[in-house]
């Protein structure tokens, strides 16, 4: 490259670098307005929505506090364990004991993360900025959902990890595959909770954290526990035992911890012992499939609502 060419190149660079408010008369070429670009793939746009939603979560105090609390929960439980939890030398049971808060907190965190995620976009009018962009509503919808699911799922996985660390002492340290399977069932339950709450947020005008929580943690389990009393049929009881709202109970039962105190089933059976004969489903694979299928169904229903929605 000759000296002249080098100099010309340098001058061109200076024009871009010295671009300030006093030089508003730049040509389209100088301001790069003539650069032609191609729209990225749908997947790439979905990921952009995902990252934006994740960034939003990191700046929401409620989300940060809830996440920290959930991650710290095993530590708190471990510290209090000597007073309120049955101690066990069997690692899996000890882990399940530490994680026994999961059924309520997964539902709660899913509701906080997804309860008003979409309605907020419409109420705060941010959707008026995002939806006219050249991307499909499915990218927008899925990007936000994936962010919520990753957040809650990540926290649950982190809680499992912390519980494992805490059981490094005082137990026999026999970590079996059941632990991994239990985590998978928990994640399926997270998927179900997130998609159900997300679907509700598409229908509710102002969004709600309370309504999906009551539905998932109280109404559905209550129905499942009361209906068999009237029908007195084993088949119905067994089917209802696989309702996805018992996903977390199944995950903990897999670890050999049958007395899950902080779930609706645990609370109900502890307060009214012997009144009903109900037990949650025993097969984790069936429970996982039920969670995924019902979650996918709710996710699709929510998408159908969003796609047809007139903003």
């Amino acid at each position, binding site marked *: 490259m000759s000296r002249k060419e080098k100099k010309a190149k340098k001058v061109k660079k200076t024009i871009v670098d010295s671009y300030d408010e006093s030089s508003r008369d730049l040509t389209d070429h100088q*301001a790069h307005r003539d650069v032609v670009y191609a*729209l990225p793939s749908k997947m790439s746009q979905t990921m952009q929505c995902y990252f934006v939603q994740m960034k*939003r979560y990191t700046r929401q105090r409620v989300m940060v506090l809830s996440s920290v609390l959930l991650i710290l929960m095993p530590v708190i439980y471990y510290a209090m364990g000597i007073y309120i939890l049955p101690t066990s030398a069997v690692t899996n049971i000890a882990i399940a004991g530490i994680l026994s808060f999961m059924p309520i907190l997964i539902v709660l965190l899913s509701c906080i993360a997804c309860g008003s995620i979409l309605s907020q976009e419409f109420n*705060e009018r941010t959707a008026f900025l995002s939806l006219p*962009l050249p991307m499909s509503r499915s990218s927008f919808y899925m990007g936000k959902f994936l962010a919520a699911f990753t957040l809650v799922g990540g926290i649950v996985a982190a809680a499992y990890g912390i519980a494992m660390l805490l059981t490094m002492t005082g137990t026999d340290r026999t970590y079996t595959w059941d632990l991994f399977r239990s985590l998978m069932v928990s994640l399926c339950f997270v998927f179900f909770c997130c998609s159900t709450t997300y679907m509700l947020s598409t229908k509710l005008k102002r969004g709600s954290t309370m309504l999906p929580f009551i539905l998932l943690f109280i109404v559905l389990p209550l129905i499942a526990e009361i209906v068999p009393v009237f029908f007195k049929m084993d088949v119905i009881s067994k089917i209802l035992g696989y309702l996805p709202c018992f996903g977390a109970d199944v995950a903990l039962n897999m670890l050999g911890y049958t007395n899950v105190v902080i779930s609706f089933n645990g609370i109900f059976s502890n307060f009214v012992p012997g009144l009903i004969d109900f037990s949650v489903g025993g097969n984790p694979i069936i429970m996982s499939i039920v969670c995924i299928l019902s979650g996918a169904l709710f996710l699709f229903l929510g998408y159908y609502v969003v796609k047809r929605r007139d903003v």
Partner: protein
Amino acid sequence: MTAQTSGCPLHLERLKSSSKPNFSRCSLAQAIVPIGNDLFMLGSKMNVLNLMFCRTRDIQVIGFTPMDDDSDIGQGLSLDVRNLTKRFGNFTAVDNLSLKVKKGEFMGLLGPNGAGKSTTLKSITGLISPTKGKIYINGIDSVKHRNAMTHVGCVIETPESYPNFTPTEMMQYVGRIHGLSNKEIKIRARDVLEEVRMWSWRDKNIGEFSKGMRQRVSLAVAMFPNPNLVLLDEPTSGLDPRGMIEIRRTMNSLKKRGMSLLISTHILKEVSEMCTSMTMINHGKTIISGDVNKLIHNLAQNENTVAIELRMLGDLTNKFISDINAMTGVSNFEKMGEGSVKFSFNGTDDQQADIVDLVYAHKLRLLCMNETGADIESLYMKLTDEARVNIK
């Protein structure tokens, strides 16, 4: 649809602006016929599928549209709305509305509250789905292809940016959705933020901004992809005079760049100052459409009425007022304040000169005589009145 059962025009976008579309890797070279700027026609639907499979790095198929009998899609038009209808239950918000915005044209969309302006703009941007009708943006059917929005910027009903984000982060979000590289995003973000005078606020949270500043960020987002069509829905509503002036200044810079604009507003001055054409709608129907100056000129010719304002020194006696009221062509007399009157006048120049004589006859000293002809306000009032009568 269609005399040409086998033909359908394709809109192709080049990735490299300098190169011509290269179909050499595609076996259809003979079947592709250019029919306009970035518009090509293919022989059959099979050809369309083949092209989709063998597209090269030089071209990107934005979409394809079956050719209508009266097809002039994309021919010099940035926006072509055809027979748009939107119903909400039994209520028809937009009724068979058609409008065309040429390339480089600034069009004002006027109408009273509830006329259907926002619904029209929302239909164009895909925020609501039309019940009936077609919308072509740069020749692409925007209802079927979201890619049509690639070169469109819009500010619909005071959109809000994410309050926890900074303007720079918003630009990154929009830039990545459009597929721009990080380097390009930085350069363009600076360009548009400087354009709307928000560059020095680029790293502050949008939640801390005033309404005017937030509106300017929205405008920057709209301008970010360097659109050739900008849609604005009441962009200056709720802003203080300074905010309004700044937004108008930005819009004027869009004009210099040759962008097309469709602006819905209640501020008639904006339309008369900035727009070259206007479409007035009421109850979802077009009342009138055309060049702003021509429409006002036609009104002035039909009405032959001017508003006259007089400012005088001296006491305005009752005798003077009754005399001026009694003059031929004077109506709607109004006393504006100390020594100032306003009235409508429909008469000859001689009769108008008599008014001046009358002022001097009453020993008043004439400070100023201001005559205004038909303007956009009178046109608006007339048309909305007529529409009301028609509906009754």
